């Protein structure tokens, strides 16, 4: 037998991968031209994109930043860029952006709005990013009162005394909670705070500012607020307040206590059944009927209360979904450890339920922030109300795209940032087993 066997002694060079695998070409082949229908779709949508860009980009860039009226824009742009060009008139933004951001807030006091906004970011930081030192949370707690003082001005004693009242009320609650039980602690603490707010704060603040030291800065009236400042004030306050109220409502709706449960269900279903605009009508016209004669409190505060109530009903439903998604074993585990209701909720149930409901919570926040624009219907000058005012100005009569595009872009940035943060948070808290 002759030796026919053949054993290769050296390795063959590895072959290049098929042209269609792992290359740009392959990607294009699979994602864009995998079949006749797909190719047609690609070509059509590609043409659409090209068409849109070809009509939008020249409009955006062949524009005028310096004109003082729409008419001037329309004259200047063809002169600069050649006959027949129709560019954007960004001049309206240049002229009015301060108004769109600050409303009619006094110009020399813009620093107060800016400072409040920066402080808000600092106060938010420890809540958003848990890596930061926990001591910063004290600042977050003080911030609402500081922000109120900075924005509206007046004496610092009012927000200070309000905060002090809250702290004293909390201490009393804690003291009684340990000795007399939760119920008495809550009742006495709440009543104390309410009486202090209704009767104590203002006289004492007046007394202190007249007799000790005023510590006051210039007062800015609510009518002067407007633009994105107003949207952010209403949105941020509503967001901050609606989460705790929503949690309480959701817990109430899930509880075994019949009366508490039916009160919560009634409230939630009522609020969810009516449009926000009717609640804002209540804020602007009816609230005067419901309050003691002679009370006339701030329109922004009234709107904030209504927006908060509205958002908290939706929040309650979102959180209820999270509570329902939690396995029953978790509740039972809490009981088995001998924790009382609040401890088991705080330590076991809520952290998990809130984690599940993050996407819903954040989209409620986004919805709330977008809904702040509705205040323009009851006459507050938020960005949309201001746009209407600008459009009725003779110089800018007939301007549409530039103004609304700007307002929309700012809203987009805020809302998009929020939704991205929610995705980040979801990823971070993802423990792999739900």
């Amino acid at each position, binding site marked *: 037998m002759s030796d026919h066997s053949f054993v290769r002694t050296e390795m063959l060079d590895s072959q290049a991968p098929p042209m269609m695998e792992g290359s740009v070409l392959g990607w294009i082949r699979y994602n864009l031209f995998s079949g006749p229908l797909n190719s047609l779709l*690609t070509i059509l949508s590609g043409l659409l*994109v090209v068409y849109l860009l070809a009509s939008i980009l020249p409009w955006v860039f062949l524009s005028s930043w310096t004109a003082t009226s729409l008419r001037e824009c329309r004259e200047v742009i063809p002169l600069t860029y050649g006959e027949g060009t129709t560019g954007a008139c960004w001049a309206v933004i240049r002229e009015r952006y301060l108004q769109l951001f600050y409303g009619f807030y006094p110009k020399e006091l813009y620093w107060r709005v800016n400072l409040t906004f920066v402080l808000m970011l600092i106060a938010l930081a420890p809540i958003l990013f848990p890596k930061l030192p926990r001591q910063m949370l004290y600042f977050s707690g003080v911030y609402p009162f500081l922000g109120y003082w900075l924005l509206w001005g007046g004496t610092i004693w009012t927000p200070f005394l309000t905060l002090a009242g809250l702290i004293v009320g909390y201490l009393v609650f804690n003291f009684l909670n340990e000795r007399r039980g939760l119920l008495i602690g809550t009742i006495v603490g709440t009543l104390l705070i309410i009486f202090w707010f209704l009767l104590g704060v203002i006289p004492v603040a007046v007394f202190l500012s007249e007799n000790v030291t005023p510590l006051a800065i210039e007062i800015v009236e609510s009518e002067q607020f407007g633009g994105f400042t107003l949207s952010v004030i209403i949105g941020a306050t509503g967001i901050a307040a609606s989460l705790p109220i929503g949690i309480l409502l959701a817990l109430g709706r899930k509880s075994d206590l019949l009366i508490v449960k039916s009160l919560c269900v009634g409230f939630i279903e009522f609020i969810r059944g009516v449009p926000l605009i009717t609640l804002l009508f209540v804020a602007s016209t009816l609230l005067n009927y419901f309050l003691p004669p002679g009370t006339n409190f701030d329109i922004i505060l009234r709107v904030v209360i209504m927006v908060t109530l509205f958002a908290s009903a939706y929040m309650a439903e979102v959180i209820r979904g999270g509570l329902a998604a939690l396995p029953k074993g978790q509740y039972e585990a809490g009981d088995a450890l001998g924790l009382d209701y609040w401890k088991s909720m705080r330590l076991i149930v809520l952290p998990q339920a809130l984690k599940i409901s993050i996407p819903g919570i954040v989209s409620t926040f986004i919805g709330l922030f977008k809904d702040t*624009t509705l205040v323009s219907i009851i006459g507050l000058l938020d960005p949309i109300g201001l746009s209407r005012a600008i459009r009725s100005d003779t110089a800018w009569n007939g301007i549409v795209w530039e103004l609304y595009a700007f307002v929309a872009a700012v809203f987009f940035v805020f809302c998009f940032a929020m939704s991205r943060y929610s995705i980040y948070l979801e990823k971070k808290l993802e423990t792999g087993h739900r």
Partner: protein
Amino acid sequence: MTIQIVALAGFMLLISWLISNTIQNLETLGKGVELWFLFEPSSYDINQKLIEYSSRSTHLRAAFVGLINTLIVAVLGCITATVLGIAIGILRLSNNWIVAKIMTCWVEIFRNVPVLLWIVFTMAVLIESLPRPATFRGENPESSLLFWDSVAITNRGTYLPEPFFSNGLGDISIFGIFEVSLDLVAFLIVLFAGIFVSNILKKRADKTQQTTGHRPLVWPYRIAVVVIPPIILLYILGFYLGKPELKGFNFQGGIYLRNSLIALWIALSCYTSAFIAEIVRAGILAVSKGQTEAAYSLGLRPGLTMNLIILPQALRVIIPPLISQFLNLTKNSSLAISVGYMDITGTLGGITLNQTGRELESILLLMLVFLGISLGISAVMNWYNSTVKIKER
């Protein structure tokens, strides 16, 4: 138990405090709470009315006209939003990269900008960029009617051809409150009868298929049953279209859709479609991949897999949030007041309120109406949901 009593007591205290305040305030203003104002003449006109209404009609009737207008825009919006939303949601899952990205852009842009801005913006664009009626005039007009001279799109609104019947049946008055065209009623009856018969045909075919294994050819008959009788009816009634014509400064004749309605409709549908698209996408993704693979291994083609395996399962996930989107759209339609569309917020909560000065009654009634609509929609949709829900044994 103690907690409950305390909560109830607190709630009662709050309510009685509010009521006593209200009574006191109303007394100082010299107003009472009563609803007779609803039966006084409204003395204002409404620019879009489907039922007979004049400024001599009562406030109640004005509210009713507004309610119908609300429902019109809500129904139109829900339909277009659903169609758009489903298309976008499915296309967002497409393998085609460009298409998927375009749809993502659509969703993000509409979702992250307030709906009020979209409504006001659409209205402004319609007014500023559509041709004026005057440009349709002359030998060489700048703008022309669309669709064989039957549709006029102007910055004052859109005019569609109007159906007329040369030997129509006339109107019928219902309880003397409003009138309904008998021609429309006849048309709808014939149409629904056709659909009913077509469904019977389908069931028969299904039965035959189950017993013999062969599906008889029924789809031509099914289409014929639905389409042919209405056409015959229209022919008998002498159906023809009345086209809008330019007379004086404006178009006359035809169905006149106001810009406010169109702006509201477009803005609400596009805005809601972004949310519906996300719901549809999530619903389809929620069906596990094994289901698709199982269907393929059974030899089903992709189209059948979608229809028989994926969609029925996805619908269960899709429908509950879809209901709440419909509710949101209906509630958002109350923003009509910002573009001057006379929905119920504009009539009852707007002009009636301002004319009679009855804030309390008007706004509470308005809220009640919306509560009713919301509960109605959720009842209908929940019923539908229970029919597609998984039947657990």
